[in-house]
């Protein structure tokens, strides 16, 4: 575990904590963007270039903008008067601890399932974009088509919702 | 065809761009302060006082009637009348202004003072480069700074000045004629006085004719000349 990993991990955790703890909702969204950037840097540090840049392009370039627009177009941009924390913090803590335990077990378990487990870690095979493209067309063509269908449904749904508004105002 | 308008527009701008280096009449910019745009004759900026002749104090046309002071909308003129009189261009003794101040930071160049002046004494100048570093006193012009000669007036507003001069000459001639007629009548009266006992009826019709014709003749010559 190099220094770079700890720095990036610190940045991501700080961003995520700020996203939860800050009062102003737009500040939370921007902190979430910092967490996304940290994740992208993590991907890049592991030499997964395509995943890292796709993370930046999609998450920071589109999802963060979407979150911010959603906050602005609804009434969420006003600071809540009675604090950010809910009424029953214990329930939340228990849920969060449970999820963390499950995720931690999954990560540690999968580390043993890798071929170089138990000894020195083998370097991960470098995956080029061409290999990803080939895999998408060969092995994963069905998920690709289903995702495309999903996106088309979302687009059509958005258009219909907007058209309904127009028809409703008429 | 879509995009045709855009291409035509691009061609037009390219022509403008290239043409601005080649032909001089495309760029109508006047590079102030090295060049100045030509000033048209009816330009008006701030007022000045006209004087006839070469001595500005003696020839100042203003008689301190204070009409312009009263008519000025932002009240930028301040006049103090004199207590003595001096003769004007006709010869009649008139009062003159001892103080005539115009604050050109207040003046709005409306030309009302010029329109109401019955003596053609105040006219509009064409100078606008009057900025100064003294914010208060530098823009308050007194009598001496405001006085400009009639030749200067001719140089900036030729047609106007010619008209004004013609009018003033006419008035002067009329006044002279009147003065001559009055003098002739007085002389005739004085001449007819002692001779009244001798031949009052015979002398009176005869003598008034001669001075009248004598008076008419010089006026004719003057208006023609």
């Amino acid at each position, binding site marked *: 575990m190099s220094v770079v990993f700890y720095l990036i991990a610190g940045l991501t955790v700080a961003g995520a904590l700020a996203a939860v703890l800050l009062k*102003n909702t*737009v*500040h939370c969204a*921007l902190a979430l*963007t910092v967490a996304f950037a940290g994740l992208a840097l993590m991907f890049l540090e592991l030499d997964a*270039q*395509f995943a890292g*840049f*796709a993370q*930046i*392009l999609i998450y*920071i*370039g*589109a999802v*963060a*903008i979407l979150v*911010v*627009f959603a906050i*602005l177009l609804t009434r969420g941009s006003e600071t809540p008067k009675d604090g950010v924390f809910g009424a029953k913090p214990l329930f939340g803590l228990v849920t969060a601890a449970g999820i963390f335990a499950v995720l931690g077990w999954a990560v540690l378990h999968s580390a043993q399932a890798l071929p170089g487990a138990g000894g020195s870690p083998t370097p991960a095979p470098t995956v*080029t*974009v*061409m290999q990803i493209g080939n895999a998408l067309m060969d092995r994963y063509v069905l998920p690709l088509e289903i995702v495309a269908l999903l996106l088309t449904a979302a687009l059509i749904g958005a258009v219909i919702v907007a058209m309904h*508004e*127009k028809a409703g*105002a*008429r | *065809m*879509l*995009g045709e308008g*855009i291409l035509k*527009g*691009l061609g*037009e*701008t*390219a022509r*403008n*761009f290239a043409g*601005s*280096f080649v032909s001089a009449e*495309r*760029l*109508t*910019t006047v*590079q102030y302060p090295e060049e100045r745009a030509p000033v048209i004759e009816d330009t008006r900026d701030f007022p000045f006082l006209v004087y006839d002749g070469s001595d500005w104090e003696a020839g100042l046309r203003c008689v301190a009637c204070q009409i312009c002071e009263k008519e000025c909308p932002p009240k930028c003129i301040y006049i103090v009348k004199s207590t003595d009189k001096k003769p004007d261009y006709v010869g009649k003794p008139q009062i003159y202004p001892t103080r005539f101040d115009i604050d050109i930071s207040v003046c709005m160049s409306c030309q009302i003072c010029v329109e109401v002046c019955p003596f053609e004494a105040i006219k509009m100048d064409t100078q606008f480069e009057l900025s100064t570093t003294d914010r208060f006193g530098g823009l308050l012009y007194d009598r001496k700074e405001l006085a400009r000669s009639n030749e200067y007036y001719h140089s900036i507003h030729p047609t106007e000045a010619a008209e004004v001069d013609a009018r003033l000459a006419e008035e002067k001639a009329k006044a002279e004629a009147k003065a001559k007629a009055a003098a002739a009548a007085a002389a005739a009266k004085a001449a007819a006085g002692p001779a009244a006992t001798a031949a009052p009826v015979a002398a009176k019709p005869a003598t008034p004719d001669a001075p009248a014709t004598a008076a008419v003749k010089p006026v004719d010559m003057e208006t023609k000349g």
Partner: protein
Amino acid sequence: MIEKADQIFVLLAHWLVSFLPAGLQHVAMVLLGVVAIVATFPALFAITVLLERKGLGRMQNRYGPNRVGPYGLFQPIADGLKSLTKEDIVPFKADAVVHFLAPVLLVVVVFMGYAVLPMGRNMTLVSMDAGLLFFFAIGASTELSVFMAGWSSRNKYSLLGAMRAVAQMISYEVPMLLSSVAVVMITGSLSLNKIVEAQNQYTYGLPHWYIFTPWGFAGFILFAIAATAETNRSPFDLPEGESELVAGYFTEYSGFKFALFFLGEYVGMMGISGLGATLFLGGYSAPLQVLNFVPSWIWFFAKIMLAMCAFIWVRGTLPRLRQDQLMNFAWKFVLPLTLLNLVVAGMWRFMGNGWLRWVVCSAILLLAYVLMARVGMRKERFGPRIYRYAE
């Protein structure tokens, strides 16, 4: 000799770095490249700003600035001094941290985009396998900075301008990506170096630039339109138009922060021009084979400056597009044509060499263009007005 002139910066960097111990050499090399980029492009920015003001003036039949220095050549210095010494006003209710970070983020992001551009032979700062994707990912972050600027000013007009700007940038990002995907398809790699290498070949002295192919020509025009809209440049400059919305999302910025936004916009323009030159105009390769003696980096910068002149020319010619006209244009005209361009590029690849593919591809693209033009230029019949209220 020609080789030396071509590689002069690389040789200079190697020589400078050789004074350091071996461990630091790699880092020093990268640092030197970074310093070179950060020094060159703001200088080009100054030249571009001057060129724009004087060029626009000449197009409008007037002189540009010609008082400061001979022919106004020192105007950028005067502008720089002015922006440095102006008072930095932050509105009282504005969000100070975000207000400060927005121009910083913009400038950082646009400079990062230069890391993957091949500026000459062996002159790429970081040669990445997914270089194009990096550039687009970085470009997507500029929208975030625009939004931050508009929101943090706590000004309705800034916010409105920011929303419009972000909507415009997102809408035009899709055609930009898709028109570059055609290039990636034909080349077979996302690496910008490989794309330039593929275009660096000559047939009878004429280059293999992608702009000389039907799909490449259409792709270049669509990319140029999308790039103009991405950088908020006239005729798509409604968010920052001076006569609308005061100054849009940077209304509340004064002094050096405004200068940083300005710098970010122009440097972003140059970056996108560089990308367009790399993708369609052959990057650092010369137009004719006989001209190969001229160093490659001169060609790259010449292409960038040519693109800037085109931007200035278009700015001086076209009126501003309204927001709904802008969005209609993106989604109803540019995007369908880009998708068709992808199909045509695929057909080009699989039709084999010969004259047939030229005829077929050009015919399809021209037909599509004319049909869309007919559909788009139909007269709208206006019905009764429909009012939509914001709930």
